[in-house]
Structure formats: structure tokens, C-alpha cells
């Protein structure tokens, strides 16, 4: 069974539910303190939270931690690396994904359910979805406004949409370029996303649309 490290920095707060979602998806997962090693793991997840209290810029301090060198090594080996919310911010700050997450267009914390269009169902994290499928997940962030100077090397994976999958300005909660909610690298084994799939991993949470992110990832790591 593939073994995933859920990396915990000071201020991370979505680690337990992320571990639980990976287990439900058929993988093995452990919380790993950022000073530990990633040896013998088949993939890594950077969960949500407020690592280092968002000092300097969200994710900026964690991105410079030593453990990120091991995350980069996993990524270049083709193993799955997933960053959720603060984890997405860390991945961009660490240069594992291009671009930056800027403060929301309306400068406040947004905590609500959104619809997402799966724009690329061929990545390590979306292979169990269909292209164009519309799913529902919560967002909870103040800096989720994706910005980049160039789309080179980016696979747009999730976009904020209405419930029919139309990517409209009205469906864009935070001002993200092209309604981007999640992007992956060219190989499709590194994904950063602002919405929280682990908070949509059981019916009693309101949706289990997010579970396929973890199922896809577990399946990818099995190969």
C-alpha cells in the first residue's frame, strides 16, 4: 500500500483530516513533522493551515525549510506531491509550481462552498474524474488569488465555475487568473489547489467529491 507523508509545519491545521481522507482512499498516511525525513515515502502532501502564521507571505517561510529539498526530490522522481490551500502557497513559494497566490480581490478571508470544473483529468490527482466534470468543495483562504506572468509549463487542473461548469467571472471567488483553483506541473505529478478536497471526503461533510483526488493519487503511486 503506498505510503504518504502529510507534512506538518508549526501552524499547519488540516493534517489529521488529510491523513484520514488518504486512508479512506486506500492509501497509508502519516503525519510527518517538518524536521523529520521523507525517506521511504511514496508521495507527500502539504496540508492546509497557517504555517508560521503566514509571516512575510503565506507559505514563504515553510517553503525554505530543509524538508522541501526532499519534497523536490520526490517530485522530480515522478512521485505525487499535493499542496492544499496553504500547501499550494508553499509549493509556489518553493518554486515547485509557477506563479504566486495573492490576497483575495476583496481583501478578506473566504470560507464557503464552491463549484469546480475539472479542466484536466489526466493528472495524478484527477485521473478518476472526467474532463469537464463539475464537483463541489469548500474553500477557506485569504490569499488564493492566483497570478502568473506566463502559463508555460502549467496545466490548469481545477477552475472555479458555476454548477453547470461554466467558468464565469461571477463564479470566481477571489480574483484568480482564468478562475484558476488548482494547477499542476507538466508531468502532472505535482498539484496545488486552494479548495479543500479533504473537507469534501464524506457524505456527512456535505460532499465526497474530493475523495477522488486522493484515490487518483493513491492509484498513481501504486504504479
Amino acid at each position, binding site marked *: 500500500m503506498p505510503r504518504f507523508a502529510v507534512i506538518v509545519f508549526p501552524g499547519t491545521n488540516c493534517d489529521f483530516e488529510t491523513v484520514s481522507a488518504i486512508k479512506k482512499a486506500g492509501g497509508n498516511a502519516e503525519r510527518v513533522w517538518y524536521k523529520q525525513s521523507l525517506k521511504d515515502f511514496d508521495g507527500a502532501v502539504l496540508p492546509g493551515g497557517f504555517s508560521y502564521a503566514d509571516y512575510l507571505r503565506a507559505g514563504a517561510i515553510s517553503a*525554505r525549510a530543509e524538508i522541501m529539498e526532499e519534497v523536490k526530490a520526490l517530485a522530480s522522481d515522478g512521485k505525487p506531491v499535493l499542496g492544499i490551500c496553504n500547501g499550494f502557497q508553499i509549493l509556489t513559494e518553493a518554486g515547485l509550481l509557477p506563479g504566486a497566490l*495573492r490576497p483575495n480581490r476583496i481583501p478578506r478571508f473566504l470560507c464557503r462552498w464552491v463549484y469546480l470544473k475539472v479542466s484536466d483529468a489526466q493528472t495524478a490527482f484527477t485521473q478518476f474524474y472526467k474532463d469537464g466534470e463539475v464537483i463541489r468543495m469548500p474553500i477557506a483562504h485569504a490569499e488564493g488569488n492566483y497570478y502568473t506572468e506566463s502559463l508555460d509549463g502549467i496545466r490548469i487542473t481545477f477552475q472555479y465555475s458555476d454548477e453547470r461548469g461554466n467558468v464565469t467571472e461571477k463564479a470566481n471567488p477571489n480574483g484568480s487568473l482564468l478562475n484558476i483553483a488548482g494547477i499542476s506541473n507538466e508531468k502532472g505529478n505535482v498539484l496545488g489547489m486552494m479548495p479543500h478536497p479533504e473537507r469534501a471526503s464524506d457524505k456527512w461533510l456535505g460532499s465526497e467529491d474530493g475523495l477522488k483526488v486522493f484515490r487518483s493519487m493513491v492509484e498513481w503511486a501504486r504504479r
Partner: protein
Amino acid sequence: MKWKARIVVRLKEGLNDPEGRVIGKALKNLGYRIEELKVPKYFEVVFESDEPEKDAEEMCRRLLANPVIHTYSYEIEPLGE
């Protein structure tokens, strides 16, 4: 040798600054004719170095600024041995 760097990190031209916009609006409410308000970040760094220019430049590039969205500038003053 000890140095002090005064570093300013600014958002690139054309990128909107929601915090600046809100503060500007509040000043307008106080009756000022504000056209634009931006909120750069200012750092004061005291450090030991034999190559202060190079180190200050690197500090900006590697951490204090995010090259995707920021520009930066700095002044360095010697503080003695």
C-alpha cells in the same frame, strides 16, 4: 564588519493592492484627496558580512521578495566592527 540594510519590497506596477485600496479609502473618508495608496514592506536588517551588497541582494531574491509579484530596493550603511 557589521552593516544595516534598509530594504523596501514593492508590488510590481499594475498589480492591485487590496490592502492599499482599503487604507486609501479610509483616508478618503477622513477628507483627503487620495489618488493612490500602496503598502510596500519595509525591512531593517543588521548583519555581519564581507560582501554586504551581494548578501542584501540575495536576501531579497531568495526570501524577502517574491520575484513573480515584487520589485525591491535597498540601502546599506556600515555600523562598524
